[in-house]
């Protein structure tokens, strides 16, 4: 473990009723967050490899935590997303280094497949800053019923020299999705789009 984790947080958000209508089975979204030290806080560093390997580590750790919290088989995961909040003494590129080069592969392993892009968001923020983690179907990005977002926030983080890294995995789409478009049961799941 190369990342220095101060806190690890796992949430499950289960919706049973929406607008008075039962949601059966309930939709469930799991969010796992790690609050880590930013090794490059307070200075410009050209080479961000250390953050890239932290991303690789956290993709597996947080992905596994989400799947375990949902109590599902990895193959039953339906959508995913990722995000990072960089503390004030860091730069946006630090979030990019964690999220983009290597976090995806171990996350896809945690959900068994994952042909689609893992949608992401990033920002700089202070303690308690909230970030909306975008969600998309893991095998076909155009599945309309699974476009969603989950708010992630840690009350006492990120400190200036910290980064909050968040991964969301769901076993469902939106609670009462009914706006047409590509359905999950229509996808080929090969090109990551349809």
């Amino acid at each position, binding site marked *: 473990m190369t990342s220095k984790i*101060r806190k*690890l*947080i796992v949430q*499950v958000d289960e919706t*049973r*009723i929406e607008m008075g209508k039962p949601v059966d089975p309930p939709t469930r979204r799991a969010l796992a967050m790690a609050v880590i030290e930013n090794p490059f806080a307070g200075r410009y560093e050209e080479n961000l490899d250390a953050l890239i390997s932290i991303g690789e580590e956290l993709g597996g750790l947080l992905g596994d935590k989400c799947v375990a919290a949902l109590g599902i088989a990895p193959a039953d995961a339906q959508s995913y997303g990722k995000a990072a909040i960089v503390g004030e003494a860091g730069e946006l590129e630090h979030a990019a280094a964690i999220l983009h080069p290597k976090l995806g592969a171990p996350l896809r392993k945690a959900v068994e497949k994952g042909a689609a892009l893992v949608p992401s968001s990033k920002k700089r923020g202070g303690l308690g800053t909230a970030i909306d983690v975008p969600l998309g179907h893991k095998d076909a990005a155009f599945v309309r019923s699974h476009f969603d977002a989950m708010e992630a926030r840690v009350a006492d983080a990120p400190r200036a020299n910290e980064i909050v890294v968040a991964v969301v995995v769901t076993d469902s789409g939106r609670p009462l999705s009914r706006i047409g478009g590509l359905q999950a049961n229509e996808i080929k799941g090969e090109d990551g789009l349809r």
Partner: protein
Amino acid sequence: MIEIRRILTHVEDIHHEFGPVAAQPLRRGAIAAVLRNPFAGRYEPEILPMMDALGPVGLDMAQRLRAAMDVPAERIEGYGKGAIVGAAGELEHGALWHVPGGYAMRELLGWKGDRNAYAKGQGGEKKGQPANALAIVPSTKKVGPPGAALDVPLTHINASYVRSHFDAMEVRVPGAPAADEIVFILVMSTGPRVHARVAGLKAADIAQWDGLR
């Protein structure tokens, strides 16, 4: 009367807070259930039936929270509860949670008191250590908008004056409560603050078993 719309569980491991890394991280958990407020939008004098109806909800939430925290009940050392009432409700609706929320966790953790006496405010304990979960369950409540954050207090389950276990968890549910909803919350923890060092009564020194010291 009981319509549970949404349930959010939250479990966190605190490894350090810029001091020595704990050999075993402090685990804290919260569960928040979003319920329809059957009294929203009017003054209802008779709200006590809801308190009874919340009994099983509290027990289920306490069990779910312990399961999400993935520790045996014996490892729970701190607890607290709270409620956030949506804009069309009143603070008194949140107060309905005092008995069912508190008693649910105390029962889960081994309380052996008289539930009916407790409900009437006469929950006197026997001398000695009758069981676990002797201390009052601390609480906060507020009326708030969707996404409102509530700082839910935590204290030691057997003695309210144990200083190392005074703590609080910020709990919020994005998007809830809507005006006609209430968020009922339980929180539990496995130990003292991660770097507790302000002296006072220690858990190991509880002697009176009166829920206080």
